[in-house]
């Protein structure tokens, strides 16, 4: 904005048409700092992967220093003009081994979710409105685990900022969906791939609740960027959860049929 204003003064001094053209182009470049545009680019640089498979390890640390580990696998399918589909299979802890969660997320309206309970061989449709609930007792809420859809957020502001000696974009956004546990989020996006390096989550009372640090970004052959280490720290309780992604596979070529609810009773 500052840059745009100074050019504006410069161009008002010069009476040349070329100056006006310069003004327009520079202002257009500066308006790239439209939060909505950055959020869209963030989604674009995450997309184009078709389908994927990945292993997740979640380590929960309590304030007293205890550890608890969860292991899961996720298969996902990119859906054009709608939210992605995901199938998550739980491996650890052992008492939930074989439990699976199928999600058909939607840009507008509630997501469809089915839970498979292996002891009964039962598939149960569940409500997806528990967005703010803890995912497996961790510091990640269900809404933190779902894929980023820019249409589900309202961009509030965007500006450049320094973070760890590096220039980044700071984007403030508000959840534009029902039942979120947050009033707003501050996201620090890498200037190159526009993926978040850090996120601050503000609770319903607008006080800082959690900080997420994302690192070890790698770009896969299909151009999609992925972070491999996510550290979520709850500022209010001092508990934290580390989430590691490993063995990303973008060559699985899954399709719609792999995400029907009937696949739940045969997953492994």
């Amino acid at each position, binding site marked *: 904005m500052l840059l745009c204003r100074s050019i504006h003064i410069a161009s008002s001094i010069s009476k040349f048409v070329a100056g006006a053209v310069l003004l327009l182009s520079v202002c257009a470049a500066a308006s790239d700092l439209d939060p909505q545009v950055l959020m869209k680019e963030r989604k674009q640089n995450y997309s184009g992967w078709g389908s994927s498979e990945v292993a997740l390890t979640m380590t929960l640390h309590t304030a007293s220093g205890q550890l608890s580990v969860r292991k899961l696998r996720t298969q996902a399918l990119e859906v054009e003009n709608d939210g992605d589909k995901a199938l998550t299979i739980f491996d650890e802890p052992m008492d939930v081994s074989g439990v699976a969660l199928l999600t058909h997320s939607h840009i507008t309206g509630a997501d469809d979710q089915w839970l498979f309970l292996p002891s009964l061989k039962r598939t149960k449709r569940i409500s997806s409105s528990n967005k703010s609930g803890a995912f497996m007792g961790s510091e990640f809420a269900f809404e933190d685990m779902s894929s980023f859809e820019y249409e589900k957020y309202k961009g509030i502001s965007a500006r450049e900022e320094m973070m760890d000696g590096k220039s980044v974009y700071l984007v403030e956004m508000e959840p534009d969906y*029902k039942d979120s*546990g947050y009033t707003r989020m501050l996201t620090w996006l890498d200037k190159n791939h526009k993926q978040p390096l850090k996120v601050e989550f503000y609770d319903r009372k607008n006080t800082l609740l959690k900080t997420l640090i994302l690192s070890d970004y790698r770009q896969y052959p299909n151009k999609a960027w992925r972070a491999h280490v996510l550290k979520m720290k709850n500022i209010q309780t001092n508990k934290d959860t580390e989430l590691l992604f490993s063995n990303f596979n973008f060559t699985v070529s899954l399709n719609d049929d792999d995400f029907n609810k009937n696949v739940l009773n045969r997953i492994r």
Partner: protein
Amino acid sequence: MKKVMFLLLSIMASTGFADTKTSLDLSHRYFWEEPAYEGQASEQTSLAFQTEMYFKSSATDDFLVNLFGRVDSADSERDHIDVRELLWRHYGENYQLDAGVGIVYWGVAESQRLVNVINQRDSLEDVLGNVALGQPMIKLEIPLDSSQWEIYLLPYFRERDFAGEEGRLRTPMVVNADHARYESAQEEQHVDYALRYSGNYENIDYGIAYFEGTQRDPTLMYDSMLNELYPFYSQMKQLGMDFQYTGDTWLWKLEALYRDTSNDQYAATVFGFEKSFYGISDSGADIAWLMEYNWDERKKRSPSYFQNDLFSGIRWVLNNTDGTELLVGILYDFDYETHFSRLRLNSRIGADWAVAMEAYLFNNVGNDDPLKAAENDDFIQLSLKYYF
């Protein structure tokens, strides 16, 4: 059967691709009321195992083996092993074919398993029918866009087991399962079949199924010569449906059936809701409130516990590291005024252990209620489970 299983297990073991999960469950039940019938025990300790093996033999085929067994200190009839699953699964282009022994679950309700008829119930494990015995089957599944067809051929019938003389939760007279009789001359060889169409459309999940064959629930008959009860298995035709509407915090559920047997034609239903309250405390616990009404057209003639009963329950999920959960449910019978309550508290301990506390309470049991026989069988059970 044993030979086939041994062969299969050795193939799996030798290939080294088998992925195995096993659990051991040590539990103790204490019945604090005087037993109603002579010989019944008040303390019951048992050890159960369950082992599941999975083997992927090719890109389009896999094998699944799931074995269960229990040894019981008090009731020798409760010593049992069961092949829960022994399944070869083939994944075709537009179909899936399963052959072997399997478990199938139909339905949406929480208080009873009304339309769920493929498997016999393991009544030694759970009197309410939540645990299934493995059913020999050939199953063809044809998935469509957001629905599917299932066709079942069930070549062999599994008889129900009953608690022995020393066991609690039994009929006044012990049932001799070895003397089972059948309406069909083919007895357990009668080939049953079933057809089901199910799917989902927006917030609705639905299923409609037809079953023809041996009725899973026996009628208990008295043999005056031997002075014992024996199970009688009649033939039946059943049309059943299940339906769920999933709202934001409300789940609305309905199961209904029409059953036609040689001596009875009747309808039965269970319907109700599950209402969730999320994040009720600072620690993020969830509570669900469940209510379901159960009805059977035969009313007092029905051998079911659920002929005119209201179920009300609470599920409290702590969302803590150990996944602690509490379930409390009460079934109130309008015909007999019986209160049947269940309570279950379970939690993990670390990664490989789990503990559970369970209690059954039978209060104000009406004289003609099928639950009458269990009136003195209130119990509390503690169990410790280890997974490896």
